[in-house]
């Protein structure tokens, strides 16, 4: 059966045309395809949020939906809107700053390190469970479930081919090619 190569390979043309990709740098050319490299890291240089808040958010995002095959750039893109939104929305900014600060206080007390610096994933996830009902956690999870999984590049990494009408559907492209039963 026709299976999907889940490693991310996009043609240079499609890559350059796609809006979300412009923020990301173009890395090494592998086998004729361009591989996405991490973008100039937003989390390291936010304009409106504190660097601590940004790096905490990024680690939280990874821990909420941990896909080892996805590098940070996908998560940065998924939370990328908050920095600009924070400039317009003081409540959001406060929720993010206060919520991440509280998490870091908790992390220091429990593990002697800021959240993003705790090595052990189980320790971090334990802290997330403690704050599961807070507005920040709920908002982040609810936003991420759309902003992470609605990225075309993520679809490919999960083996989903996306739009098919422009390619004539799957009638000649494997709608019934399952052969292992």
């Amino acid at each position, binding site marked *: *059966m026709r*299976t*999907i190569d*889940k490693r991310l390979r996009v043609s240079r043309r499609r890559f350059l045309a796609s809006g979300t990709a412009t923020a990301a740098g173009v890395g090494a050319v592998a086998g004729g395809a361009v591989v996405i490299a991490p973008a100039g890291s937003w989390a390291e240089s936010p304009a409106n949020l504190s660097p601590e808040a940004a790096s905490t958010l990024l680690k939280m995002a990874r*821990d*909420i*939906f*941990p*896909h080892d*095959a996805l590098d940070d750039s996908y998560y940065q893109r998924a939370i990328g809107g908050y920095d600009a939104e924070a400039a317009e929305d003081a409540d959001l900014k406060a929720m993010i700053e206060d919520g991440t600060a509280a998490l870091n206080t908790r992390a220091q007390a429990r593990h002697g390190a800021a959240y993003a610096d705790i090595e052990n994933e189980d320790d971090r*996830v334990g802290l997330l469970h403690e704050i599961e009902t807070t507005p920040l956690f709920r908002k982040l*999870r609810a936003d991420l*479930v*759309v902003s*992470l*999984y*609605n990225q075309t590049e*993520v*679809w490919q990494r*999960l*083996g*989903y*081919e*996306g*739009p*098919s*009408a*422009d390619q*004539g*559907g*799957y*009638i000649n*492209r*494997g*709608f*019934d*090619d*399952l052969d*292992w*039963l």
Partner: protein
Amino acid sequence: MAAPFALDDDSVVVIVGSGAGGGTLGNELAQQGIDTVILEAGGRHEIADFVNNEWEMFGKISWLDARTTSGSWRVAHDFPGLPAWIVKAVGGSTVHWAGASLRFQAHEFRARSEYGAVHGANLLDWPLTLEELEPYYDRAEDKMGVTGTHGIPRLPGNNNYKVMAAGAERLGYTKYHTGNMAINSQPRDGRGSCLQIGFCFQGCRSGAKWSTLYTEIPNGEDTGHLEVRSQCQVLQIDHDDTGRVTGVVYADADGVQQRQKARVVCVAGNSIESPRLLLNSASAMFPDGLANSSGQVGRNYMRHMTGSVYAVFDKPVNMYRGTTMAGIIQDEAHLDPARGFVGGYEMETLSLGVPFMAAFLDPGGWGRDFAWAMDHYDHMAGMWLVGEDMPQETNRITLHPEVKDQHGLPAPDVHFDDHQNDIRMRAHAFAQGSAVYEAAGALKTYHTPPYPSTHNLGTCRMSERPEDGVVNKWGQTHDIPNLFVSDGSQFTTGGAENPTLTIVTLAIRQAEHIGREMAAGNL
């Protein structure tokens, strides 16, 4: 006179909504030469506007006006502002529907007699039998081009179907096939055959799937007797001092209120908006809302017992390729109270894309297990469970005391509690669904809770006696002879089957009745 019709033309039939019920009724009336105006709240998006993208299409054509939820159902917790997934556009929810088109079983029209008194359930027999409906089911299936009927071949099975069928066979089930689908398996009715695009829920780009948008509505318009006014949301139904309805007030595309006169008004806004409109039309003469002498308007809201089972296999399935729902197991659809519940359920293939899978697989879920499931998206197969739920008087649409919509009208609150029968049926269906996939070799199965309701039924139900329901066997309200209900709100009980074929069947029959009554001078 030919369309378009004047606002003060009181000879027209006005239909509220252009979906399965309203769109079909409009065409059927127009074919008889009856001048008809359909007022549709949503815009007109033709096939070229459809995109193969779940969130984008959802945002473009869903009904997103203010709604609230209450009750103990899981949807109220997971999706408090979105009790139902309904389309607001010309064509209504037939733009997004999957096409599964099943007839009710004979005993399902006699639920009260067959099931007996079920505690807490407001069961009632339909004032109709399967026999009476059969000729109209025939016409509906022919109109919609339903596969597996009238000599129309079934669709080929896709990968998702293959997995389900293999499990069904190994489990000893015998009634499984690729369904009765209103999707062309071969060119028919001027439309091509299914290209297995796989975005049936986002609008069929090939037009192979029946939708009133590009069948009934243009066919009706071609007669010159049907006018469809899009972006016109009906706010209120007017009546005179004899208690007959005289027309409707609606907000046009610019938000300006207009009044369309009418000889007959037919309400087909789907089972949340239809009762809401009757309730919002309360007057001094009808203080509890129109056609509500029984107190049943808005009550007995049904949404089918639903749930989904997804299963991960060690090899790829790629379930998203091809038709979304062309696969069914019907071995559990019969009545067998020995299973611990009355009524039956269907098991139907279902696939969601990555964006919707993330949102619906385990609402609120996160962490390693969740990510593992998503990492195995291409190794997943899926099915939807849909069965008869019990009508309960307290499951109902009411007008919210504070929340208002964009027109300043009270928003509908959708209250629902699962009945014990629903809960027992869901448990049985989840177990059987898992067993099917385990028989096919699943590594892991997931029991996904109900999505926002796609099948909304029963809120203006049909009854023999006026005190038991809102409309008679023709969908005509017991209280007001020239006011009809023309959608799934009429359902006395829900049956196990996806409802749209029955909605279309009732609309065809209702159109005949209205034509006859008009000719006889009674309307």
